[in-house]
C-alpha cells in the first residue's frame, strides 16, 4: 500500500507542477506564493514577525487555504478529465488511492507552509537580526507545526470527501465554499453576543495558558480530522464513483 500511495503522490505532484504541460509554468505560482508570504510579509512586519502570537493564527490558517486550492481537483478533476475511470480500473486499492489523494494535498499545503516559515525566518534574520538570531519561540514553533498539520489534514479530508461525489471541479469548489460558510457563520455572531459574555470570554483567553489552549485546539482538530478521514473512507466505494 505504501508503494501505491507513493506512486499516486508522485503522479499528483507531477501534474500539479506541470500546469499547461510545463514544469516552469506550474512552479511559478508556488514561487509567487513563497515570495509573498515568505519574503514580502516578514519584511513588512519586521522583527515582530517572530514575536507576535498572531502569527500562530496566520500559520494555522495558511495550510487550509493552500490545501483547499487543490482538493476540489482530486476526484472531481479526474472525473472531468475522464481519467478517473481508468485509474479505478487499475489494481490500486481503494484505501491507497484515498490516502494518496489526502496525503498529497496535506504534503502540498503543509510543506508549502513550512517552506514559507523557513524562508520567512531567513528573511527576517537577513533584514533585521543585527547580529542576534531571530527565532520563533520553541513552543510557538511546535504549536505552528502541529496545528498547521492538523488544519491541513482537516482541509484535505473535507475537500477530498466533497470531491469524491462532485461531478465537476466547480461543483466541488461551490460545495466547499458553502460548507466553509456554515463553519464560519458562528464567528460572525460573536460581535452580537452580550458585552458581559464577550468580556468574560476575553478574560478567559487572556488568562489561560497558551499551551493549554493549543493543546485543546489540537485535540479538537485531531478528533475532527479522524472523523473526517473515517467518513471519507466510508464514502469511498469504487463501484459508486462512476457517476454517469
Amino acid at each position, binding site marked *: 500500500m505504501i*508503494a*501505491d500511495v507513493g*506512486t499516486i503522490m*508522485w*503522479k499528483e505532484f*507531477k*501534474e500539479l507542477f*506541470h*500546469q*499547461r*504541460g510545463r514544469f516552469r509554468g506550474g512552479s511559478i505560482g508556488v514561487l509567487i506564493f513563497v515570495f509573498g508570504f515568505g519574503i514580502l510579509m516578514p519584511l513588512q512586519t519586521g522583527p515582530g514577525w517572530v514575536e507576535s502570537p498572531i502569527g500562530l493564527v496566520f500559520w494555522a490558517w495558511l495550510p487550509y487555504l493552500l490545501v483547499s486550492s487543490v482538493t476540489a481537483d482530486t476526484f472531481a478533476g479526474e472525473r472531468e*478529465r*475522464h*481519467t478517473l*475511470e*481508468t*485509474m*479505478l*480500473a*487499475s*489494481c*490500486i*486499492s481503494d484505501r491507497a488511492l484515498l490516502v494518496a489523494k489526502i496525503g498529497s494535498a496535506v504534503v502540498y499545503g503543509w510543506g508549502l507552509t513550512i517552506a514559507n516559515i523557513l524562508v520567512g525566518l531567513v528573511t527576517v534574520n537577513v533584514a533585521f537580526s543585527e547580529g542576534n538570531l531571530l527565532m520563533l519561540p520553541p513552543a510557538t514553533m511546535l504549536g505552528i507545526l502541529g496545528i498547521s498539520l492538523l488544519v491541513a489534514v482537516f482541509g484535505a479530508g473535507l475537500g477530498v470527501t466533497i470531491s469524491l461525489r462532485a461531478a465537476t471541479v466547480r461543483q466541488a469548489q461551490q460545495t466547499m465554499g458553502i460548507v466553509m460558510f456554515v463553519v464560519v457563520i458562528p464567528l460572525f455572531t460573536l460581535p452580537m453576543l452580550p458585552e458581559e459574555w464577550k468580556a468574560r470570554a476575553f478574560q478567559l483567553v487572556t488568562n489561560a495558558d497558551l499551551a493549554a489552549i493549543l493543546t485543546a485546539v489540537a485535540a479538537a482538530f485531531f478528533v475532527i480530522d479522524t472523523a473526517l478521514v473515517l467518513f471519507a473512507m466510508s464514502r469511498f466505494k*469504487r*463501484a*459508486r*464513483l*462512476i457517476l454517469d
Partner: protein
Amino acid sequence: MSTWAIRTLGLSRDFGALRAVDDLSLEITQGTVFGFLGPNGAGKTTTIRLLLGLLEPSDGRAQVLGYDVQTQGDEVRFRCGALLEHNGLYERLTALDNLELCGRLWHIPRAERQGRIQELLTHFGLWERRKETVGQWSRGMKQKLAVARTQLHRPSLVFLDEPTAGLDPVAAAALREDLAALATREGVTVFLTTHNLTEAERLCQRVGVIRQGRLLALGSPNELRRTTGTPKVEVTGTGFSQHALDLLRARPEVVNVTGGDGRLVIETHPGTETASLVSLLTGAGTRIEEVHKGKADLEEAFLSLLEEAEK
C-alpha cells in the same frame, strides 16, 4: 484455473428506471478475441464496467478469469488491461510518465518496467516523442499510447472499447494484427467493442450483439451470417432485360433483386440452387460473364438482428 476468461449469468444493471444491461449470460473462452457489437447506448460500456468491478450489478453475477467481480475485484483488475470509453491518459504528463505510472501501479520491477516501456513505445512508433506531454498529441497517437498502456503489465485479458477509433487505416490494420497476435501467440483474451463490423469480422472468433441491454445473438461471425443474413448471388454480364428481372422476382426462392446494368444482386432464401437462377437468366437472353455466390456480411446480419429486435 477456469477455461473461461469471462462467464456471466443473468447479469443486469439498472440506473433508476433504465435497465442498461438486462439478464446477460455470456461465456468467453480464454485466448480468443470476442467482439461486442451494438448501437450507441446498447450497454457495451456498462458491461465492461461491470466486468471490471467498477459498477455493482443490480442482479446476476460475473466471473472474470475465475474471480468474482464483486468480491474479488482487485484480483480481476490486477490481471486485466483496459482501454475504456475515454483513453484515460494524463495529458499534463509525458508519454513516458503515463506508462511509468501504469507500470508502478502494477508493481513491475524498475528494470523490467523500463525495458517494457521502451519496447511498447518503439513498437507503436512513439519512442521518439516519449518526452512530450500527451496533451499536445493527435487523437490517433493518444489512442496508440492508451493501447500500449493496456499491454504494459502483460495482462491475461484486455478490454478495449473502440480501440481503432481515431487511428488512420494503416495504424488500425497494424493494431488489428497486434490484437490477433496477442490472442494466438500469447493466449491473451481480448474483449473489444466496436462499431466497425468489418473489423469485428476479421478479428473476432466470436461476437455478441447487444441492444438495449439485451443480448440478441452470440456466435462466430459465420454463424451470425448464416442464421440472420440473406444469401446473395451476384451476377455480372449483359442483357439484363426487364423480362428477365420479372422472371427472377416471380420465383418463390428469390427475396429481392437489385441492380441491372451489367451487375445484378439476387437475394435468396437459404438453400436456393444458383444453377436454376442462372439457367433462367440465360434462357431470358442474358449473357453471363461471372456468377458469385456470397453470404450476407456481418453488417447485414447485424442490421437484420436490430431490425428484428425492433419489431
